[in-house]
């Protein structure tokens, strides 16, 4: 499960885009992990994530934080998305001090994440996973600008056509980039969609795209 890994974009676009995951380990610390996961979520929530969720329950744009906390069980994997380096630094400092007991994973630009860990006093990255890009019939993929938005949901639940429809709606004055970003966030149940980045990307696409479908 690598749904926060293959986000597309250049350094400028990704530099303030972080997904923090809390994950218990099957057969080791999964049994009895629900209170630890709830505590992890509460700590994350204090530091102002732009999105937060659990795959099976939903995110803060289609349910409430209380509902997400209530439905955490042993084995639940939770995700919190941040739009600021400073927030992740303060979060990791608190996690280092309070030790949630479950594994913590941060997705982001590698050297920025290492810098955050250094600042939080966590030392070197423990284990790393890189994306080696997309291989095969790549001509079937949508435009890179669309991919920058849709790949924020690793389960591919953000439809390419939805991005097109929302761009058209923004151009027609039916919605705003912020509202469109909110609509997209509802599709990504895990809470991995970064609304701040999404809004910015939609704004960047507006003058470049002629939308003629739907």
């Amino acid at each position, binding site marked *: 499960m690598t749904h926060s890994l293959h986000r597309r974009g250049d*350094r400028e676009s990704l530099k303030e885009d972080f997904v923090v995951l809390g994950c218990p380990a099957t057969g080791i610390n999964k049994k009895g992990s629900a209170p630890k996961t709830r505590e992890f979520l509460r700590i994350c929530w204090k530091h102002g994530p732009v999105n937060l969720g659990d795959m099976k329950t939903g995110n803060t744009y289609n349910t409430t934080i209380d509902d997400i906390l209530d439905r955490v069980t042993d084995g639940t994997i939770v995700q919190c998305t941040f739009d600021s380096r400073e927030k992740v630094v303060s979060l990791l400092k608190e996690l280092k001090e309070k030790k949630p007991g479950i*594994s913590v994973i941060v997705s982001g630009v590698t050297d920025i994440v290492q810098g955050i860990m250094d600042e939080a006093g966590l030392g070197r990255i423990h284990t790393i996973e890189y994306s080696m890009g997309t291989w095969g019939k790549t001509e079937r993929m*949508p435009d890179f600008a669309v991919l920058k938005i849709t790949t924020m949901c690793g389960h591919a639940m953000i439809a390419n056509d939805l991005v097109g429809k929302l761009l058209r709606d923004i151009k027609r004055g039916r919605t705003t980039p912020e509202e469109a970003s909110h609509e997209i966030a509802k599709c990504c149940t895990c809470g991995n969609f970064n609304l701040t980045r999404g809004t910015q990307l939609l704004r960047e696409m507006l003058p470049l795209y002629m939308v003629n479908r739907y």
Partner: protein
Amino acid sequence: MRVDEDKCIACKRCFPYCPLGRIQVLRRHPKIPGRVYIEIDQDKCTDCGMCFRANVCPVDALYQPAEPWPREVRAILSNPLIEYKGSQVPGRGTEEMKTNDVTGRFLPGEVGIGIELGRPGVATYFRDVEVVAMALAPLGYEMAEENPVTHFMSDRKTGKLRDDILDERATSAIIEGKCKLENLPEVLETIKKAAEKVDTVFSVEIISKVPPKGEIPIIPILERLGYEYSINSKNNMGLGEPVFKFDE
């Protein structure tokens, strides 16, 4: 995913929410004069449930019936709300490196490699998943035991999948496993050749334990062989407990 033809009014509000694009057609209702309804191409639909969850249908015409095997496999790998009991992890894959600080799944000298077919947003038939799995199997690539695709194999030594799922389709399906560091060039070369044989796309990921000091061992290999890797990555913070003692 199906549409109740007696309820559907063909308003097309569900169209833009389908992650696989235009897989719907308009049909004339056989009994109600003038009524048009939407029919979803059942071969292309992966039962991900996104159109249903979008909650945009004004007449509640969308529904997901309980599908028998082998079609059941589509929702297992495509609908993120469904947990595959074999992996005990919600989603399409495993815990992989996320819990490596406590499991020691990836040791120094080992490389985790995942190949997620159909991603991003193109989808894949299992016959293409089999092409890649069978190419990797002879190379000492150890398939992850708890991964759903591994469970769907009829022969794990050869990577052969069950015949009854080959024509089924998923939004994406991940082959996960690991190999020795010295086998990495051969494994990557094999994946590159397999990319020419499949009728879809796949995203490739690579995992390494980071040593306390010095270079990450996969980096010089990737750079020497000319493979690109992302500026962004997924990083285990080493905060899990109890800590796995690595011999390094």
